[in-house]
């Protein structure tokens, strides 16, 4: 560009001056927070009642970070005089977020709607061992699971 040599330098200075007068878009984190989109993969929530201990999620997980133990229980028959029904109940359901890579295969593969994604992401811990969320804590995340977003028309 056949412009006199110093012109490019001045043009750049005009850009910085213009930005000096704009309000910075910074979000001051502890005071006001950015709301993540509804579909953001922050943490996995577990609905223990729906889980039938089918072990699919633990098998499909690429990082081997879901540890499940369950036992069988006899349940009264559905209608009187029917056969005793056995139902497997969860004893332990841990997800180790130190290993998890948030790929979402477990949520996708679960046939019983027991696992949900929640955009909650403020669960950093002091020690890495605390990243192993047990069944009770995964249940607490259920409250933070949002409604699915409305779709584009």
């Amino acid at each position, binding site marked *: 560009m056949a412009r006199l040599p110093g012109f490019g*330098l001045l043009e*750049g*200075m005009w*850009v*910085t*001056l213009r*930005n*000096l007068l*704009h309000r*910075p*878009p*910074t979000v*001051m984190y502890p005071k006001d927070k950015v709301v993540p989109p509804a579909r953001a993969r922050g943490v996995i929530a577990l609905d223990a009642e729906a889980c039938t201990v089918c072990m699919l999620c633990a098998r499909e997980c690429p990082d081997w970070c879901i540890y499940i133990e369950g036992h069988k229980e006899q349940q009264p028959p559905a209608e009187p005089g029917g056969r005793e029904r056995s139902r497997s109940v969860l004893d332990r359901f841990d997800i180790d977020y130190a290993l998890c890579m948030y790929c979402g295969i477990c949520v996708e593969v679960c046939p019983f709607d027991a696992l949900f994604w929640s955009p909650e992401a403020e669960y950093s811990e002091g020690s890495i061992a605390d990243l192993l969320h047990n069944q009770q804590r995964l249940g607490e995340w259920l409250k933070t699971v949002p409604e699915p977003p409305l779709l584009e028309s």
Partner: protein
Amino acid sequence: MIFDGFWVLLGVKLLALTVVVIGGSLVIIYAELKVGAHMQNRVGPYYAGVRWGWAQPLADAVKFLQKEDLVPADADTKVFKAAPMVSLMGTMAVFVIVPFSPKLIVRDLDLGIFYALAASSLGTLAMLMAGWSSANKFSLMGGLRAAAQLIAYELPMVLAVVGVVIQAGTLSMVQIVDAQVALGLPYVIGGQAVGFFIFVTASLAELSRTPFDMPIAESELVSGYMTEYSGIRFTMFYLAEYAGLFAAAAIASTLFLGGYHFPGLDVEVWGPFVLLAKVGALAFLMIWFRWTWPRLREDQLQSFAWRWLVPLALANIVVTAVLKVAL
């Protein structure tokens, strides 16, 4: 006999000078943080101090002071420890001749500007000492680059000042300001515009600020000769850099912008504020450069000094001398 007027007066003056310089540097540090941030669409210091983060420089100072003061194992300890002191003293020494108002000056030497330039070249020595004694390859390269650069830009700076001295006919700072008052125009308009450009460019290089910050090129040499420093020694270097900026801005405004004089304002009362306003304007300019431009490679930087600035400064001297004689 020790306590007759002279020594006490000198002691008080030096104390006042230290307070002014340190205070001025802290203000410039805060300006750099805040203005630079807003130029980059950030907020900058926010929490330090009640509002606007004004106490950030103080917080930095306290933080650095309580940090551990490490000396590398195989460093040359005496030289390593002395380097930051030399750098800070070299910069403070320049303020002896800066006139805040005709009477508000530590010592109006009739050598004035000549002494200031000599004192400011101490900084080069400090950078070399730091670079060499840190026993770290990157620091060594940073130190060498600093030395080459500062020497290369010492010359145009001095030659630019010579232009002013010829026009003013004196070396003493107060008389230079009086000459500009007599001329009715500050020298930047009254004949020394080229000199002003050269002086500002050269002082940018002296302070190794962008676009000449090769010695502290973060992306290559981590932080050049200051890499191994921490704690109070790093604070001294950090303060020396901004005190240097304060000094360069003060001298430039005295030589070229008419110092403490502003038409229509009483010099005695408003003198210091006028000078500080001009220093603020020049500091803003230097901060503006830093947050806009990349840095030059040092061979380009050297060729820029030797092939452009020095000839330009010489031409400026010749023109000034001819005009001086002709008018």
